[in-house]
């Protein structure tokens, strides 16, 4: 009996570890792919700076900054400025679903970088932001 429950526990633990590494691996893969595109080491601090830097104010939309919709604390849910739709937290620690779909990641970096900064983000910038959001 003892042996059986021990086995079950070990099995559960192993499953959990595998699951955790699987998630981590996806974010790692994402970062690795940015490195192959020419990025260097990623800096969560730089990512945070990017996250909170304002790029001026658009007369139609308002202030051009990530936190206008995503909030200063990425562990909290944000809100679409115009439609009011809730945006689930960006921090991987509270929302493990984040950055598990590379296509979705690229789609939103493309849209939001152009929206906020008026240009596409470099692989370095994307990696910095992801390491910031992944390490919270």
């Amino acid at each position: 009996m003892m042996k059986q429950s021990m086995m079950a526990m070990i099995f559960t633990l192993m499953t959990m570890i595998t699951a955790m590494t699987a998630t981590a691996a996806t974010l790692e893969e994402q970062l690795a792919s940015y490195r192959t595109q020419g990025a260097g080491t990623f800096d969560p601090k730089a990512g945070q700076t990017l996250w909170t830097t304002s790029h001026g104010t658009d007369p139609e939309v308002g202030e051009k900054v990530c936190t206008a919709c995503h909030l200063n604390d990425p562990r909290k849910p944000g809100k679409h400025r115009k439609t009011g739709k809730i945006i689930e937290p960006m921090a991987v620690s509270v929302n493990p679903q984040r950055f598990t779909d590379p296509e979705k990641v690229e789609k939103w970096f493309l849209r939001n970088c152009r929206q906020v900064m008026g240009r596409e983000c470099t692989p370095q910038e994307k990696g910095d932001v992801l390491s910031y959001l992944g390490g919270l």
Partner: protein
Amino acid sequence: MTQTTPTNIIVWDWPTRLFHWLLVATFGIAFATSGDDPLLRVHLWSGFLFFGLIVFRIVWGFIGTRYARFSDFVASPAHVIAHIIGVLHRRPQRFLGHNPAGGWAILLLLGLGFLLALFGFLVLGGQEGYGLFAGLLTFAQGHQAMEIHEAICFSMLALIGIHWAGVIVESFLHRENLVAAMFHGRKRVENVAPSPNSVPTHAKLAIVIALGALVTPTVFLLSMDSKPLWANNPGLKITHTWEVACGECHLPFSPSLLPSRSWEALLAGEEDHFGDILALKPETKEALRQSFTGHSAEDEPTEAAYQINHSVQKNQTPQRISDTPYWRKKHRNIDVETWKNKDMGKARCDGCHADAKEGIFDDRAITWHAPFNAQSKQSPENGR
């Protein structure tokens, strides 16, 4: 003319009298509550009762008491003309029951009433998607049925006018109160041997039929209410691409809420989608185009699709659903504060319409109504 002792006999039996005044009441209520929205329910109830009454009266016209029968009051055209000439000479023949002209008015009123209810059922099925003919008619067909429904109603109003004129003229010429007679049922009899005219035994049977005619539609309506169509309706088609591409920022509005030229314009203007850059991939754009092709306001059979499409001028291309005249008309009584409510807002149809995502917009799926006495305010322009 020598007179024997005048006596009073029951001419209008009580089922006929009851029928008459209930028909007046239901017609009046239905007329006062015509149109849709909150009063539609009252309109339907009175309409169903009205239909049941008409069915009863037709049956009663065959098995009722003497003066209630069609055989008593449906006269030949020659008699009708003769009677009208008599009225013009102020010397019409007196009839205990309906006179020849009045008899035809009754027959026409019953016939039109039957058709009125029948077309009402068609409107209900076509425009609101429930009742006997739900799912059998498109909204456009329901709309045509409504025009006929209204035409029949106004024909009936004209006939009622003639009916009143007849009642007044004959009351005056024969010096009797015909309106009162329809309440107590008695009329004066001169030199005619009074024949007993009580409700015969088979009246019971007829009353059962009458009850059935009243109760059946009532039960029918109740059963419809317990299972509104929208609750089981899978709704209009939304593709996966549409749901994801639109639904990540707002309710994935049904393509049926704008004409296809509007969706085309939105695709063309995706670099400035109300201030947002969509940066759509060419294949996503194409998939979105596929999603609205054949499913736009001009294509879908729902009320919202039909009304929005018909409210927009052909040379106009609104890019917001809330810019279409029909939408504005329907939401004109909602004040600014209500729009600011966190669950509402113009991008949040589902804040009030439980079936918004399915694109149905059934009246019964509305969970919040503007108060009746709300001031008619022009909704503020959307800030971009």
